[in-house]
């Protein structure tokens, strides 16, 4: 077959990457809508005051709620979260994009930052799982 199926299948071949496809968008719909809600100052207040209570207002699985509470961004990606939506959470927390992103890697923030200062992660070996390139 030479169509959307092939197009999407290739995305699974990229190491350490979740491409935000329809399947993920559907799975993470309410999670992303919750995160988007944090663009309003009122909602940020309410979230900060009582995260659990605020989360209960949204149609989220217990798994998603726990992952938000734990700020486990890899888990949130696995649940269909998209990084631009999730970024409203770390903006609310007042941490930088780079620090939040580093939590998804196997490095701590200083190490990650140092890698970036040295030119970033090399694409060598990061392009394709199957082709090991």
């Amino acid at each position, binding site marked *: 077959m030479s169509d959307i199926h092939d197009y999407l299948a290739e995305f699974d071949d990229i*190491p350490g990457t979740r491409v935000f496809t329809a399947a993920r968008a559907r799975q993470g719909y309410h999670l992303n809508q919750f995160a988007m809600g944090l663009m309003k*100052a009122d909602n940020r207040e309410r979230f900060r005051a009582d995260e659990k209570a605020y989360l209960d207002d949204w149609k989220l699985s217990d798994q998603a709620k726990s992952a938000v509470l734990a700020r486990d961004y890899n888990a949130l990606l696995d649940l269909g979260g998209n990084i631009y939506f999730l970024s409203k959470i770390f903006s609310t927390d007042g941490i930088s994009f780079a620090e939040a992103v580093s939590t998804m890697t196997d490095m701590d923030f200083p190490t990650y930052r140092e890698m970036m*200062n040295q030119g*970033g*992660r090399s*694409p060598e070996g990061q392009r*394709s799982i199957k082709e090991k390139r």
Partner: protein
Amino acid sequence: MARITAGIATSHVPLLGVAADQNKSGDDYFAPIFSGYEWSRKWLADTLPDVIVLVYNDHASAFDMKIIPTFAIGCGESYAPADEGWGPREVPDVEGHPDLAWHIAQSLILDEFDMTIINEMDVDHGLTVPLTMLFGAPDKWPCKVIPLAVNVVTYPPPSGNRCWALGEAIARAVNSFNDDLDVQVWGTGGMSHQLQGPRAGLINREWDNMFLDGLVGTTDKLRHIPHIEYLRETGSEGIEMVMWLIMRGALGRETKALHRHYHVPCSNTAIGHMVLEPVDGTVPPSPTIEGKNAAAQAMID
């Protein structure tokens, strides 16, 4: 008649907005980034356009998951900076150019681009950071802006080929606008970056520079790069570079580079910036029936 006078490409990393707003652009970390824009700021002061068609993507600010337009063109009077989770940036509102925007929107639909017309929205860092990088911190932005928001968040985004063709159609539309206006097209986002997962932080200096090279001259090879190549080579958010192809397409058959800047890192991202001028601004004629009405008329008569 209106004309496209230049194209600008630039990354739009939110941290650059923060650095500028907090007067940190001279710091050790930021100076090498901002200094690469100095030439452009001076050049712009002499060649200020009347209107910028500013191609960017919304990062879950104006659009949530309820509605995802592939190509949305702002036809409104003005746009306020969005609150992205830490309060809106304290930069001026962006003034639109409804006359030209509606003219372009209508022309694009006749050219069989399935545009979404937007009359009211807030604009996020994708649009305001490029203005900051090129204009600094004026009380009022020095020209009008037509926002052109592209979906590059939910897959699939438009193909590189479609983006290039949209640029060509924008050029046709601008060329047929009756007022005497200088118009620039800006393509923003990119370059290499991945903001998510264990592979975050990927930077591909070689590929990025291949891409910068490809914007210059008569080649149109960039329009044929499939999405999977952006993803593999430049990280999951490198796909934003398809937006640069709208700018490139609008410049026509041949371009010249006036200025080029590349720096790693800014936060998680490789910064790329280029100023391009059309050498031969020719674009293909509209292939559609409604877009060249004389032909349509001939069919009825």
